[in-house]
């Protein structure tokens, strides 16, 4: 680390009044600060959504429990789903993309810094709007309250007749507002990656994280548009007396399903592809090997993005589509397992023969590989229409998609937290607490979501607020709820680790992992302008070239 860059950091460390520092956070257009804002915002909502999940699990711990009312239970699962997808997972991946993409492609900021700030605040206000429904949706007067129509809000339940008050309006408007923010961030990411790469970084030399976030942003653009359109139609129906989803006037409830899932399924890959991106950066570094099959990884990512646009109606097999439509969506859904499988083999091949070091990020990444495989396998099971007719709407589906979102995506998000925490804070996290977090979470995750498959197979429908004893569901629900205890404890350890290490951690230096991508070449935390002189790269691992001038990568690529 040069003394010059140390000098720059020191001047920014002069303590300023609290008001001034807060003002700086609110008015910032720096991609790193906005990235941190996104991630902190997502963490707060992760805790909120987690509390909602915990309340539901307490209610379901035994039959005929009366911990929450049926009405409150409906609100809980709606808010839990909406919060976790739109105000935890999306801001989380956007936050990491915001922070990392410019650093990893050797740029000084995003392409449109002010659009970046605008997008964050739109997302932030979208979340606040959703939660304002608790008091604003006529909640305090007994009618309405938080939205209770489920996170995919099927028609005609959302019609004025069945959803009086304003709770559903809050749901719609909050997704409209945050959708604008999502599209803004996606536009920004694509423009950044295409237009601001440092000299020498051709598309074929970009870190895989940049490639995958480029694909993710493309999916956001193509998927959030339909969601916005569907929400606009719902607003027309609810406020202007329109008939889009009004079955009595010739409208169709199934059309809403199509429009929602045209967004809803690509959305899964909007969240999963950044998780793949973290895995593709973390697994090589902790295996001390370059990623196996870089071009194939890029091709598989693009294939997943492409196919994910044509699988949406596998959420709708039970609606009763034509057998031609069923066949198409069965085959397209099964086809997406091929590029996904290629990725798993590439990560395994990267680890194969490597000098693996199981630090906390690598522990999470390894668990991710196993859990993502299982999540994919239950996905292939559910993609088969006859099997789906039996299990759609059951806890088997709930277990499957939580295996994807928690077991794969959240595990990789945790890995990314530990891997890049030294870069963001300039300090190391506590390895013992990190490992404790990992083991508690692995135990809790498997207790909850492995055993959740069983009541699903035994016929337990999702979204019921209680159940009869003696159906064979009792013990499984008890185990599932016990798992939540472990997961909650793990998240507490995680947050404690973050907070303690932020203030008291050991100084990390600029490159604690002996990494290969550009972000490790600048200081930790990076200066506001990232790079005093823009780097020039000749291979996919510029820092390897720098550290090993006798055997650089560009001789082989």
């Amino acid at each position, binding site marked *: *680390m*040069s003394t*010059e*860059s140390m000098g720059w950091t020191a001047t920014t460390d002069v303590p300023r009044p609290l008001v001034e520092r807060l003002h700086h956070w609110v008015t910032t257009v720096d991609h790193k600060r906005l990235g941190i804002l996104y991630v902190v915002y997502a963490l707060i909502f992760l805790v909120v959504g987690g509390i909602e999940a915990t309340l539901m699990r307490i209610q379901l711990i035994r039959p005929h429990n009366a911990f929450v009312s049926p009405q409150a239970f409906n609100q809980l699962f709606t808010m839990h789903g909406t919060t976790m997808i739109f105000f935890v997972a999306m801001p989380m991946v956007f936050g990491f993309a915001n922070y990392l993409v410019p650093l990893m492609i050797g740029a000084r900021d995003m*392409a*449109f810094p002010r*659009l970046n700030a605008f997008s964050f605040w739109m997302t932030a206000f979208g979340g606040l709007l959703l939660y304002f429904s608790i008091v604003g949706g006529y909640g305090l007067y007994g009618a309405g309250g938080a939205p209770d129509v489920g996170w995919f809000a099927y028609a005609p339940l959302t019609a004025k007749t069945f959803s009086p008050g304003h709770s559903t309006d809050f749901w719609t408007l909050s997704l409209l507002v945050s959708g604008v923010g999502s*599209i803004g961030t*996606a*536009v*920004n990411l*694509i*423009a*950044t990656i*295409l*237009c601001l*790469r440092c*000299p*020498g970084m051709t598309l074929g030399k970009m870190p895989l994280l940049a490639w995958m976030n480029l694909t993710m942003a493309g999916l956001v*653009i*193509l*998927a*959030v*548009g*339909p969601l*916005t*359109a*569907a929400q*606009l*139609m719902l607003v*027309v*129906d609810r406020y*202007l*007396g*329109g*008939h*889009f989803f009004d079955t009595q*006037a*010739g*409208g*169709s409830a199934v*059309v809403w399903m199509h*429009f929602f899932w*045209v967004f809803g399924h690509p959305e899964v890959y909007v969240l999963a592809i950044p998780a793949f991106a973290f895995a593709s950066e973390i697994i090589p570094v902790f295996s001390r090997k370059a990623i196996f099959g870089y071009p194939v990884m890029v091709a598989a990512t693009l294939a997943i993005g492409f196919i994910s646009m044509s699988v949406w109606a596998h959420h709708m097999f039970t609606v009763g589509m034509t057998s031609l439509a069923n066949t198409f969506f069965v085959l397209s859904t099964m086809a997406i397992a091929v590029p996904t499988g290629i990725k798993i083999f590439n990560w395994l091949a990267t680890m194969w023969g490597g000098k693996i070091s199981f630090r906390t990020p690598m522990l999470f990444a390894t668990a991710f590989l196993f859990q993502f495989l299982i999540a994919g396998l239950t996905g292939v099971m559910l993609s088969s229409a006859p099997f789906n007719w039996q299990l759609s709407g059951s806890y088997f589906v709930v277990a499957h998609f939580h295996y994807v979102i928690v077991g794969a995506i959240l595990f990789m998000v945790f890995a990314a937290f530990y891997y890049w925490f030294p870069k963001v804070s300039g300090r190391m996290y506590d390895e013992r607490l990190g490992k404790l977090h990992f083991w508690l979470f692995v135990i809790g995750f498997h207790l909850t979501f492995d055993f959740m498959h069983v009541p699903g197979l035994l016929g337990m429908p999702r979204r019921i607020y209680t159940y009869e004893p003696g159906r064979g569901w009792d013990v499984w629900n008890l185990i599932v709820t016990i798992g939540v205890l472990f997961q909650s404890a793990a998240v507490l350890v995680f947050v404690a680790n973050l907070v303690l290490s932020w203030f008291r951690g050991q100084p990390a230096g*600029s*490159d604690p992992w002996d990494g290969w991508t*550009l972000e490790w*070449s*600048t200081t930790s935390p990076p200066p506001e302008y990232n*790079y*005093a*002189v823009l*780097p*020039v*790269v*000749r291979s996919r691992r510029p*820092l390897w*070239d*720098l550290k090993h001038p006798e055997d650089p990568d*560009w001789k082989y690529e």
Partner: protein
Amino acid sequence: MASETVASPGSDLRWELPSRGPVGMYCLIAAEAAIFVIFVVAYLFYLGKSVSGPTPSILALPVFISVCLLSSSLSIHFAVRSLRSGRVTLFLLWWVLTLLLGAIFLGGTAREWRHLIADEGLRIDTNLFGTTYYSLVGLHALHVTVGLLLIGTVAVFTFLRQVRAQHAGRLEVLSLYWHFVDAVWVVVFTVVYVIGR
């Protein structure tokens, strides 16, 4: 280590990337196109599904305003080209012509809607046709309005002599948006007034 040492010595590579303005606008256009696709699909799907009330046969072909809107794509193109070569007055003429043509289109839409509402009794809550028609045409008209506000802002700045040749790149980005709005009208015109009638 200092970041500058990452540079490999002696590299004399030429490094040119696309400029961020058009790339950003193309992305925005893709997102907007996705929104319009959903509205067009809804329009086509609900054709003839209204259980009561007026049908699309009451629509008249809006030929004149369509010609005006499509011509404005040409005029904005000539405007930006004039500005690029530094002829600001010529630019202003083409630019104001674009503004006028867009305004004529909006006025024509307003007249058409007044006729439909007052004479034909078709409102957005009358039947499915009303809902889908006003939503699709209205969404497009909203985009025309946004475009006119932007074009009008630039016109004001031009009157204040703030617009120079160096701004041609930015106005090129705005013209991309305007071309998109026109292209959407071609689709809406075909779907609503040709296929749907």
